[in-house]
């Protein structure tokens, strides 16, 4: 499937979110969030606990439906035609989404079969090389360190060569060396396909800001600010984030 994004001033839009509301009983996790993102961009979403970041990401991943609002991903209405989009989305979470009792290869082969009907061996071999786990391909994932599992999780998320990659707190539980490797891998994956769009949810302002091309602050389910990174200074953004949280907006 080739999905074409919408257009904004000549740029192709990968994500268009408008008036998103998500209600859980009496609690409103998202309260009218709206933003758009160009194809090939890397958006980091920041916000305190309970700001609605993961809820937003799950809606973008078509795993959850909003109570109100519209979502277009890669030019496709995500609420009307989620099945058309699923082959174009990859998700890397703080949970590995891997089966501990299957080997690295078996995990990738399984997820590949769900997309292609049969394991795409060439793609799996390539991904295992990219994430530097080729030598452990026949070992059960349960024997892997957290960092290795997260690297394999990147391979799992890319097994379908997605145009949109979502990252949910990917640094959770990683040691500094694993974080470095993870950043390097994401950098390599971005180079592999420059039109690929990334949306990352993170608590870590420093790391998230370093990786992104666009930054967004979410508080109480609303977009407080969204800006291109090269148009804001890191210190100013940090102050704005702290002020937003500190003022009780979040």
């Amino acid at each position, binding site marked *: 499937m080739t999905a074409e994004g919408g257009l904004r001033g000549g740029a192709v839009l990968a994500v268009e979110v408008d008036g998103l509301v998500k209600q859980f009983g009496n609690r409103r996790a998202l309260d009218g969030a709206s933003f758009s993102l160009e194809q090939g961009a890397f958006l980091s979403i920041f916000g305190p606990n309970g700001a609605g970041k993961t809820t937003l990401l799950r809606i973008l*991943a*078509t*795993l*959850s*439906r909003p109570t109100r609002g519209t979502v277009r991903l890669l030019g496709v209405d995500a609420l009307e035609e989620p*099945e058309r989009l*699923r*082959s174009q*989305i*990859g*998700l890397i*979470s703080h*949970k*590995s*989404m*891997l*089966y*501990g*009792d*299957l080997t690295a290869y*078996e995990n990738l082969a*399984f*997820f590949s*079969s*769900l*997309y292609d*009907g*049969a394991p795409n061996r060439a793609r799996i071999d390539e991904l295992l090389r990219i994430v530097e786990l080729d030598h452990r391909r026949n070992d*059960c994932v349960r024997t892997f360190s957290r960092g290795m599992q997260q690297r394999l999780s990147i391979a*799992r998320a890319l097994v*379908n060569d997605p145009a949109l990659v979502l990252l949910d707190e990917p640094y959770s539980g990683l040691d500094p060396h694993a974080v470095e490797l993870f950043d390097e891998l994401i950098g390599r994956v971005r180079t592999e396909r420059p039109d690929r769009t990334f949306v990352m949810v993170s608590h870590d302002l420093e790391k998230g800001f370093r990786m992104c091309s666009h930054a967004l602050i979410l508080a109480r389910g609303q977009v407080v600010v969204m800006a291109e990174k090269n148009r804001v200074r890191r210190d100013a953004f940090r102050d704005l984030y702290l002020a937003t949280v500190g003022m009780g907006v979040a």
Partner: protein
Amino acid sequence: MAKLSAWRQYKALLAKDVRQELRTREMLVSMGVYAVLVLTVYGAALAQVGDRLQVVSFAAGLLWALIVFTSLLGLNRSFGRETETGCLDGILLAPVDRAVVFLAKATTNLLFLLIVEVVVVPLFFLFFLSGAELAPTTPLIALPLLVGTVGVAGMGTLLSTMTINTRGKDVLLAILFIPVVFPLLYACVSATGVAFMGVEGTFGTFWTSCGIAFGYDIVMIAAAWGLYEFVVSA
């Protein structure tokens, strides 16, 4: 093309569960051990009454209680691997029809339940019915066992999906499962009882009960198939 793709996805989902189980034997061993423990409890309870009771007259109830309790244990564990590291989200992210996910998981549960029954039912006969005079119609219990297990696996899969993310899911599954499968259980116990007793003239009840159980399977599994998309995205 879509049907071919769904068939391959179904096979991939099934093969993944079977491969994991063959590697760990987690579900089969735990269900098997639990079933033997239930048999031990039955043995202790029935030992107190000696020969005064004819076990054949209530063997159907004992057998189905054993199957239901063992199934509950297995059903609770069947989604453990999917939720432990968020794998269910990984499956739902893929372009897989939710009905295919349901069918694959229900088939896995059915397969594992049948394997456990193949071991446990002969043990039940050995422990409690070896000295009893069995009716020649006893082998017919295979039919209600099969039809009942299909329904238990189908409804159990739907209900265990509904409870995976809830607090106290083990208890909640039992609370939901037993009332929902009660009509099926009633029919299966009745059919199994008739087969055990082998009283002439009661075979109309056997076939009627099997028919009710079969109808339950069709209706409930069709409903589960249709509802699964809603259940997994709720």
